Every structure is written in C-alpha cells, then in structure tokens.
C-alpha cells in the first residue's frame, strides 16, 4: 500500500509560509535601508513569493488528496457516504458558479464595448470561478463517487504522497 500521509503537504505549506515570511522581512529591511516603504516589490521579494505560491499549491493538493482518499488506500469497494448536506452544498456552490460566470460574461461585454475593466477585478473573478469549480468537484468526489480499490505497488504511485 502506498502512503498518503500528510508529511509532504505539511512541509509544503510550512515552506510556503517560510518563504512568504522571508519576503515580508526582506521588505522590512529594504524599508529600513531606504528610510521609507518602497511602493514596488523587489525582484527578490517577487521570487520568494512565487516559490512560496508553488509550495502552497503543492501542500494544498496533498491535503485535498489526504482528505479525499485517507491516509492509506485499502483494497476493496468503498461506498460513497452520500448525504443531503453535501448535495445542498454542491447546489449552493453551483448557483454561485452560475452567478460568477454571469458577472464574468457581463464584464467581458462591458470591457469590449464600453471601457477597460480593472485587471485585478477580472482576474479575481476568474480565480473565484475556478476555485468554486474545484470545490464542487472535490465535494462530489468525496461524497458521491464509490470506488473499487484494487492494488497499486508502492513504487508505481504517480505522486509522491
């Protein structure tokens, strides 16, 4: 059986926090040297924040996998623990997804016909839509998908956790 424990996800998140903390302290030092807080991020800060984001995503993926499949895959048939609560949550998330998609479409129409829209607003909107979709898929997999686990050799696992 392959391990699906939380060691690697935990250290992924810890490294992400460590890198972001370094970026913060670096900014504090730059401000101390310059005598004021610079408006822009330094190249070093951008690098630290970016690698921190990579480790953060790696850690979140690991914890989602840990939550979905448990610590260890055991052979056998695993029935889905379908529940009304999970169904209601998916329904609500779907309504939110439709609403967000509508806003995004309206934004694109306004952008092309009237005036440019803030890049930050459009980007955040797209991000919320993707996160909403991911949440729906994860909850559906957790509560509504039964699965039969056969076996998989330790060394054939495609992901390290």
């Amino acid at each position, binding site marked *: 059986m392959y391990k699906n*424990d939380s060691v690697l996800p935990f250290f992924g998140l810890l490294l992400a926090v460590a890198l972001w903390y370094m970026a913060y302290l670096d900014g504090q030092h730059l401000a101390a040297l310059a005598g004021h807080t610079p408006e822009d991020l330094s190249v070093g800060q951008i690098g630290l924040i970016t690698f921190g984001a990579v480790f953060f995503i790696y850690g979140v993926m690991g914890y989602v996998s840990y939550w979905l499949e448990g610590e260890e895959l055991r052979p056998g048939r695993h029935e889905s623990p379908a529940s009304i609560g999970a169904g209601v949550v998916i329904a609500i998330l779907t309504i939110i997804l439709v609403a967000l998609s509508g806003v995004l479409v309206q934004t694109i129409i306004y952008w092309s016909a009237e005036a440019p829209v803030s890049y930050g607003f459009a980007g955040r909107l797209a991000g919320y839509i993707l996160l909403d979709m991911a949440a729906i898929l994860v909850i559906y997999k957790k509560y509504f998908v039964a699965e039969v686990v056969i076996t998989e050799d330790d060394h054939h696992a495609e992901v390290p956790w």
Partner: protein
Amino acid sequence: MNQNIERIEVFLDESKEPLQVLTSPPFKVKLDTQAIPDGPHTLRVVTVFKGGKTEENVIDFEVDNLPSPYVEGLDEGQQVRGVVEFEVLTGDYNAPKSKDRLTTTLAVLSSVVILGLIWAYFAFGPTSKAIVEANAAVAEESSAGAGDAAHGEKLFAEQCASCHGAKAEGGFGPALAGSALLDNPEQFDKITLEGRGNMPPFGNLSAQDLADIRAYLSGLAGGGASEAAPAPAAGGSEGDVATGESIYTQQCAGCHGPNGEGGFGPALAGNPLLDNPNEFNKITHEGRASMPPYPQITDEELAAVRAYLKTK
C-alpha cells in the same frame, strides 16, 4: 422470544445439510467466510414453527477475502506476440495499517526551527549589520549637529547673516529658517561649499561647521523671520568701533571677509571708499553689481562700520 419457534436452520447456498441448527436463544450464527470460496453466496434461514409451519429468508451476499489481482502489462483484447511479460499485483486486506509519520511534535518542532532560523538570519545577519551601521551614522550625525547649535549661530552671524538675514529670515539671499533645504543636508552642504547663482562658495567651512550651522538653522524653525534682528546701538558715533564691528560681522563679513580682507566681495580694509562716506553709504543702501542693497542700515551705523574698518 417467540414461544412458537421450534428451531431455526441455516443453509448455505444449495446445501441440503444445514450449516447450523438453532433450538434456543440466543440464535447467533458464526460463519467463517475464509472456509468458503470468494464470490457470491446465498444464505437461507428456515424458521420451523410448532405445528410444522415454516418461513424462509434468503439473503444474497458476497465473500471477498482475497483482493482481486490486478494485471499490469496485458490489457483486455490486446494483440501480443513473442514473449510477453506482465505483472500480477495483489493486495492484502490484513496488511497492518502504518502509522501517520507526521506527529504533532515533528510539526511544531520543524515549524519553530525553520521560521526561527529565518527570523534569526534577518535579525542578526550581514544585512542587519549594514542597517544598524547606517542608522547609527545618521544618529551620530544628527546628535553632533544638535550639540553645536551655539557654534553654528556664531558661524552664521559671521558668514551668512549678511545675505540671509540676522535670523535667517532672508535678505539678498533666501530665508533659511524653516527652509526645506535643511531636510537635505547633502544639498545644503553642496550649495554652501560650491556656491550657487549670486551666492559665493564657502569652501573654508568644514563638515562639522556646516552641521553646526544646520543645527542652528533647524532650531529657528521658521520663527526667525518674525523676529526683528537685534538692532545695533542706534546713534553710534563716528568712533563707535564696537558697534561697527557688530554690524559688520552680522551684515557684511559673509562677503567681504571677517576682517574686511575681501572674499566674494572686494576688500574693504584700507579701501579708499572709507574716506568717501556719501559713496560708501550710497553703495550700501542701494547695492551694486552682485551686492544687495542694505537700506535698513542707518547712516550712523555705517559710520560706525567705517570706523571699525579703518582699524583694520
């Protein structure tokens, strides 16, 4: 318990012989699934009541003691030729569960160590030393300047007051009391040492002198403009050398030198103009070339200045 029950017979699959016959409660059946093959089975529970009536319950179930093997390397319907190698993977329901390797101690300890090392590097590393040194230099400079404001006042009176006013309120030169230039020491020192526009260079001033003058000017904080310059003793006689020296030091020495030996302006010590009061007063009151007018100095005060200069 139902008193009408005579016995309960449990049959497995199509067997004619009962697996177990229960005649008294509790009617518990123990079935060892490892003794029968994996796959679908049927359990028949026949209840025989007193009087001969029977009732039968049939339950289908599946035994799965051995996980199905998974063949890796040979797919359904795949065309093969020659020697084919594939692997049969099997699982074990009874394999012991391994413990989670991430313990609370490990999580807390590693968090403290990693974040602590980062903090320590930024707190005590080489970058921090550079910051501490830079800030210490600034503090030292500011404290040195603040301590010598009195000396700065003396220097200002000798070198600068003639153009910038006795209290730095401005005159021929701009007001320096409360000037934004004081917030930029480098620019202040550069202009003073190298001159700018009509202002002559004062290369004789040391960095410490400049810091003293800045300290003095910072102390004025713009209030000097509203304060009247200390009026020299009015009605000074022709021979009032002390009054003349005072006025000269405050108003003229900045350009003509502390002892009238000349500087940005011409030398006045021994100048024949001293014997021509009218012309001397006219030039002083109205200005000439680069020299600004000083109409506020009275004829009596100018006489005292001339008397002072004649002693040089």
